[in-house]
């Protein structure tokens, strides 16, 4: 009867494949009108005037600017720093910054009306890329040992700079919400495609000056998030709410692909610099690392992206003397934000290319260099965290080598250039440092006469949250999986389980649910069979319709973290991974193609192996796209290729054969030993592919995406 570790049917799968699932654009409310955003057409400047054409018939239109924010409310998007307005007041700091909102019952008339609105600006000089950026939005330093002493011990110092481009999350369903004003005029309900209903609720409360009983946020079936629906839906929900309050009618706002591409967040472009002291035998003795991220025009979540990027910047390698300096720089481009991996893919791209460079300069095999320096149990990280238990860096590498070599094919003489590259990586599960303690997430179980219902704020965004949580609770209670259902994430019904981000939904929230289940079990008293569980449940409920057991995050006793010094246990547990990539480069077209990718990842325990493998395949492919295809072309501060004919992601035919192997080295504080899985797969493939291109062509690329133009240029320069 145990279901953990088995591939049970997806909880919401049938609704999705039969079309019963309702996405935001499938929903409608009586009297609903459609909202649209008027955005800035300059990258930076002062707004001189916003003029409406008096000759145009404005009847039936609702228009809203920053002055519509009610007294008691604030024109600030609630995030880390209070710098970003919902609607520009007198200045704009990036292209596509929202200035004005407009709504009408006929969505076709919106474009017509927008053409009759003129915004005049006094443009100011804009900084459009990382290269020219100087304003620092956030900086941090992680120090271990004494860098000077480390370099003094080195036989050789190896330097390198590495660059990664922006990337779009490209969920299938664009951002969209519907805001429904309350009849009392003092409350609002927002339905939408999102990862974090409680983030949206908090943003709406600050914007409208309402309390938590007055703002209800409901997640509708969501077609993917990947971080792109972590913080952005707060802005969109705020816009729809302002229009709904002004019009007194429900307002739907669903972005089309162009708007979603040009206006919403992307992965932070990054510049990673390494200076490494290394001994002749390959031992790393000093690592000096600089991590610079392009934050765009506002701070948004960049400080925490930087934190994760910097902590992961050393890669899974031990070194006695380390200094990581991280900075987020401001540019006049749309703010960058959360994207699967959250900074770690950028910084580990840097170290993994750099490791191959070190190996080459020392004349050591890149695998041997890694084996010499990979973390093992008992090692201490740059933040001073002693790693013990569930450290699998060596194991994933060994197993990847076995797996990959086993399938080796004979070399063909077809003129194609072939190479193989490797990358090893790690990924901390859950919020960084003291983040989980601050979140104090809650989740629970509702016992009903019929079944057990999960009350959890974590959202299903395609990754399998509902299925995996139900499996954890079913096995904890020793009842059938089918007896566990999940309440819709609705701030009026479920507690705040923290955001659905940071590879925390299984390890952290799953554990909270497990503890709630244990509370329920204790209340029931001993039972031997599911039927007895049911009998006892009914007795316990007596005449009550339901009984709730809510548990709160409980810090595993041995975790400590100091935010001021950036020292301590950065994460409760790490997932460990290794990628090996085979690449072919066509010497005629200079196109590179990844033909085979091995991914071996230790996730502690696969609650649902098929979903876990799916996460790893999908994440790996997202990284293949980032490495070879996906290029955000910016022109004057705006994404120039804002459509899917030009911003391309790999199709099925571009997808390598992906060999996934799960390693289950349990983490004692995760449910059934589980750690995080969602983000880790994105950390390695890009570096493995570029290391393979190096081997295939002899040219070293330091930047992704590795488009044929870049490969041609590099090969010409040889």
């Amino acid at each position, binding site marked *: 009867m145990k279901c953990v570790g088995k591939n049970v049917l997806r909880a919401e799968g049938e609704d999705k494949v039969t079309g019963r699932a309702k996405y935001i654009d499938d929903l409608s409310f009586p009297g609903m009108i459609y909202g649209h955003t008027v955005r800035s057409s300059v990258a930076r400047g002062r707004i001189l005037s916003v003029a409406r054409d008096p000759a145009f018939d404005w009847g039936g239109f609702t228009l809203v600017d920053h002055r519509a924010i009610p007294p008691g409310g604030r024109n600030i998007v609630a995030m880390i720093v209070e710098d970003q307005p919902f609607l520009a007041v007198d200045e704009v700091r990036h292209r596509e910054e929202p200035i004005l909102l407009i709504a009408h019952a006929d*969505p076709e008339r919106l474009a017509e009306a927008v053409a009759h609105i003129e915004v005049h600006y006094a443009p100011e000089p804009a900084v459009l890329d990382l290269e020219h950026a100087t304003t620092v939005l956030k900086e941090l330093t992680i120090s271990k040992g004494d860098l000077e002493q480390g370099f003094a011990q080195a036989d050789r110092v190896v330097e390198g700079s590495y660059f990664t481009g922006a990337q779009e999350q490209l969920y299938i369903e664009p951002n969209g919400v519907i805001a429904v004003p309350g009849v009392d005029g003092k409350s609002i309900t927002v339905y939408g495609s999102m990862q974090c209903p409680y983030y949206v609720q908090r943003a709406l409360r600050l914007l409208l000056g309402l309390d938590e009983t007055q703002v209800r946020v409901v997640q509708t079936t969501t077609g993917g998030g990947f971080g792109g629906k972590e913080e952005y839906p707060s802005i969109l929900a705020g816009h729809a709410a302002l229009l709904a309050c002004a019009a007194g009618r429900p307002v739907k706002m669903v972005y089309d692909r162009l708007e979603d591409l040009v206006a919403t967040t992307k992965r932070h472009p990054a510049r990673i610099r390494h200076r490494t002291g290394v001994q002749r035998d390959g031992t790393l003795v000093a690592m000096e690392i600089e991590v610079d991220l392009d934050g765009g025009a506002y701070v948004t979540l960049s400080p925490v992206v930087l934190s994760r990027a910097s902590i992961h910047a050393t890669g899974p390698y031990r070194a006695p003397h380390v200094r990581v300096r991280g900075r987020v720089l401001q540019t006049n481009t749309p703010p960058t934000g959360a994207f699967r991996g959250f900074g770690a893919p950028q910084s580990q791209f840097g170290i993994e290319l750099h490791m191959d460079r070190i190996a080459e300069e020392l004349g050591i095999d890149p695998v041997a260099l890694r084996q010499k320096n990979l973390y093992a149990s008992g090692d201490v990280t740059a933040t001073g965290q002693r790693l013990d238990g569930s450290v699998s860096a060596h194991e994933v590498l060994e197993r990847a080598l076995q797996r990959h070599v086993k399938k080796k094919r004979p070399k063909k003489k*077809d*003129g194609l250039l072939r190479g193989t590259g490797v990358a090893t990586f790690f990924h901390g599960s859950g919020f960084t440092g003291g983040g989980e303690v601050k979140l104090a997430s809650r989740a629970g179980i509702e016992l009903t006469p019929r079944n057990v219902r999960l009350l959890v704020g974590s959202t299903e965004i395609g990754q399998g949250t509902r299925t995996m949580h139900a499996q954890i609770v079913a096995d904890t209670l020793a009842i059938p999986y089918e007896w566990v259902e999940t309440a819709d994430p609705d701030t009026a019904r479920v507690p705040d389980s923290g955001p659905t981000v940071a590879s925390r939904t299984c390890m952290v929230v799953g554990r909270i649910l497990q503890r709630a289940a244990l509370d329920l079990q204790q209340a029931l008293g001993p039972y031997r069979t599911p039927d007895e569980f049911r009998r006892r449940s009914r007795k316990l409920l007596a005449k009550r319709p339901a009984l709730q057991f809510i548990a709160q995050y409980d810090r595993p006793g041995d975790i400590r973290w100091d935010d001021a010094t950036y020292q301590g246990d950065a994460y409760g547990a790490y997932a460990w991974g290794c990628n090996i990539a085979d690449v*072919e480069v066509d*010497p005629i*077209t200079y196109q590179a193609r990844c033909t085979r990718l091995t991914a071996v990842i230790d996730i502690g325990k696969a609650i649902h192996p098929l979903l876990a493998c799916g996460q790893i395949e999908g994440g790996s492919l997202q990284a293949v796209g980032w490495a070879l295809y996906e290029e955000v072309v910016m022109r004057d501060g705006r994404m120039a290729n804002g459509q899917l*004919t030009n911003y*391309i992601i790999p199709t099925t035919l571009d997808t390598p054969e992906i060999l996934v192997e799960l390693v289950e080295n349990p983490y004692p504080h995760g449910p059934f030993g589980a750690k995080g899985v969602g983000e880790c797969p994105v950390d390695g493939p890009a570096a493995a592919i570029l290391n393979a291109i190096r081997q295939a062509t002899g040219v070293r690329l330091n930047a992704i995406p590795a488009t*044929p*133009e870049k490969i041609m240029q590099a090969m010409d320069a040889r």
Partner: protein
Amino acid sequence: MMRASPFSYFAPITIGEVAKILAGEGPRALLLAGGTDLIPNMKRRTQTPAVLVSLRRVAELRGLANGRIGSAMTLSSIAESPHLSPHRALIRAAAQVATPHIRNAATLGGNLCLDTRCNYYNQNYEWRQAIDFCMKRASDGGGHPVRNEDGVCWVAPGSPRCWAVSSSDTAPALIALGATVTLVSIAGRRELPLNDLYCDDGIAYLTKPSDELLTEVVLPDATGWRSTYWKLRRREAFDFPVLSVAAAVKLASDGTVLDARLVLGAVASHPLLIAEAQELVGMPLSDDAIERLAAAAARFAKPLDNTDFALGWRKRVARAYVTGALRELRGDDPATLGLLARRATALRPLS
């Protein structure tokens, strides 16, 4: 994306009825076959026909026999047709258009009459509005794009003409194969060499008047001919070509070239027939001859900055592609011709 603007809809049953409707409605009307390009264009308002004439019920347009292909045949039925296997360039071109889903709906006639494309034109309404529209503009209530007298060409701002790019895969292949097309209007029917259907202009890219219907494609006898089609795109599926090479040669038993045609696609507003291919006639396909033609063809390939990829790269690859395609026709082992050649041959087994 907006909804398509309102239109009236006709569903005639015979070619004669179609011709009558076209004559009556004039340029307001557009033919709807697979709709895979037209419908999204209508939602982006790059095409805004007041009248749609569906060809779905016109059975006469769906034949395939004796080298005659009805214009409403789907691209997948062409790619899979055993009758067409001697015309390898066509099969390869049809098999590489977009995706299986689109090929199952898209038609040969539609691909031949495909609107020219440009990064400044194939955008949604708001995007184009933001750049004050370019020279090419949807006419109000008219199906065919018209010249916007106030608009500039954003690709070449000083230019008096529009540089949108011919992006059909089947057109270069069929021109290389020497195909003709049959056009029907109420005035009667006429046959035209396919190359003469196209005009070197991004707006008025077809020479046929709007009241004419392309009913079929006629292929000459392929005996003695070998042909191929190489398509360059960033991914292995879905994308429009950024360069294509269609080549056909007729060889004598001793390997002497009796006739040759070379067409480049996606480098101009029309498929570019390279006259220099005739210089191969009377000689064997030697490395020298191939290199000379490749160099000549590359000179004609003047891609502009209006599709994907950097120009220098596309120009370089054009030369390599012509070389590769001709070497393939000479009988060189396709496995030595690089990645894309292998992809093309892997598409489906060819007899």
